[in-house]
């Protein structure tokens, strides 16, 4: 990735893999919103980047011209890899999503809260007493992976394997198709085994549920179920891990917010929403399938859209003091979980995990800060969050 030519102009040659973009994209987006609200690049075989909330919203709502079949902007156009419903368009999208929704309502997610709290406490137990730790590696990255494994009914101990696939599919695989296909194929094989095991001896977990569920009396094919399982695992891990990491990164540098939140648990709901707005981790993609126009831009079939909910969330036309984190912000119509039919199915799960993770952390570590001797590093590409977050834990 270090061999990439640096972006020469964000408006006409943007590159979201450029280290300047990964490290601090916000000033770039502010500049684009004023100068060129829909930026373009010849990289990635042709892609656009809308930075205003209204344009992001319009594209998310327009499923006729903008397809979800390629949910990630990549260097090339590898074969389509359906992972329904995230890769589905109407009319297939609706039934594929509806069978998953009942497992992700706030009530159903609340059932996983005790396990989530136990995981957080176990991780904190390993850190407590030390003077420093890595908030991303030792804490944030371990929580969602274990919770989703618990929900799916697969081994929590396979967490390293799951994270490796995610890195291959969402980071390295963006520019290296071989690595992408390898990660993808390994995941397919893993879930084929899981499906076969449950056909032999049924189990009461999410995989078991998907094997039994019927739409109009028809079960889903194993290929469809495999795609859904890969989606749930990929979407459920580095997204929330990034969100938790960004929250800790913010709180490490803002003692006022940290102390307010530690003192008043009633603020947690609003604070989590504000962190989601300001540090939304997930950028999606759409592929133009029918020529159309928006704000003077003509989009042609085959071009990609980098659909940045994080950029929409920083638009001052919609959010007062958009670049300031206001942990008790009252009006917060943020789009961190997307807009329209592809609203993240795991939004209630993510909110629960972030809230539990921060509550448990602040209880044990009300005081902590960035380690000035070490560097924070950020993920590159579709999901943004700290991958190294060296912290000093002041007793």
């Amino acid at each position, binding site marked *: 990735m270090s061999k990439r030519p640096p972006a020469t102009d964000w408006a006409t040659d943007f590159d979201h893999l450029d280290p300047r973009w990964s490290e601090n994209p916000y000033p770039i987006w502010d500049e684009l919103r004023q100068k060129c609200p829909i930026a373009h690049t010849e990289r990635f075989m042709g892609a656009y980047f809308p930075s205003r909330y209204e344009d992001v919203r319009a594209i998310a709502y327009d499923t006729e011209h903008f397809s979800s079949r390629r949910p990630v902007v990549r260097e090339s156009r590898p074969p389509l890899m359906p992972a329904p419903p995230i890769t589905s368009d109407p009319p297939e999208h609706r039934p594929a999503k*509806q069978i998953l*929704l*009942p497992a*992700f*309502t*706030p*009530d159903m997610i609340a059932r996983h809260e005790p396990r989530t709290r136990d995981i957080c406490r176990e991780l904190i137990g390993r850190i407590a007493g030390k003077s420093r730790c890595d908030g991303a590696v030792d804490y944030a990255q371990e929580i969602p992976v274990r919770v989703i494994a618990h929900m799916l009914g697969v081994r929590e101990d396979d967490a390293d394997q799951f994270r490796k696939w995610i890195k291959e599919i969402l980071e390295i695989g963006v520019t290296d198709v071989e690595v992408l296909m390898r990660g993808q194929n390994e995941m397919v094989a893993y879930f084929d085994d899981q499906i076969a095991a449950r056909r032999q001896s049924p189990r009461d977990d999410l995989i078991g549920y998907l094997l039994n569920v019927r739409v109009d009396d028809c079960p889903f094919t194993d290929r469809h179920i495999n795609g859904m399982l890969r989606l749930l695992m990929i979407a459920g891990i580095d997204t929330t891990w990034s969100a938790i990491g960004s929250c800790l990164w913010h709180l490490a540098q803002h003692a006022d917010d940290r102390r307010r939140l530690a003192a008043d648990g009633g603020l947690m*709901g609003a604070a989590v*929403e504000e962190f989601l707005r300001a540090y939304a981790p997930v950028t999606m993609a759409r592929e133009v399938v029918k020529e159309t126009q928006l704000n003077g831009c003509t989009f042609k079939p085959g071009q990609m859209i980098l659909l940045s909910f994080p950029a929409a969330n920083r638009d001052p036309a919609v959010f007062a003091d958009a670049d300031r984190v206001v942990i008790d912000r*009252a*009006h*917060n*119509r*943020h*789009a961190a*979980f997307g*807009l*329209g*039919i592809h*609203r993240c199915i795991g*939004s*209630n799960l993510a909110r629960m995990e972030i809230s539990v993770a921060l509550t448990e952390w602040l209880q044990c570590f009300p005081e902590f800060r960035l380690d000035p001797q070490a560097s924070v590093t950020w993920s590159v590409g579709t999901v943004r969050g700290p991958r190294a977050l060296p912290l000093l834990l002041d007793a």
Partner: protein
Amino acid sequence: MSATKVLIVKVDRERCQGHARCFALAPELFELDALGNGRERGDGRAAPSLEAKARLAQANCPELAIEVTEE
């Protein structure tokens, strides 16, 4: 004629995508169905004292699916 106003809240079922913000912020006024989509409780009529909560839910709905009126 009574001068007392009645608050009416309504979730547009077509617009709602199940962000569940209304239920989180104003559970007195909104509930979720089995799929997690929002809807007004009962016929949506509520005491005017709940107006601030209704407006808060409205201002936090990402899909602009909530209507608040008075009668």
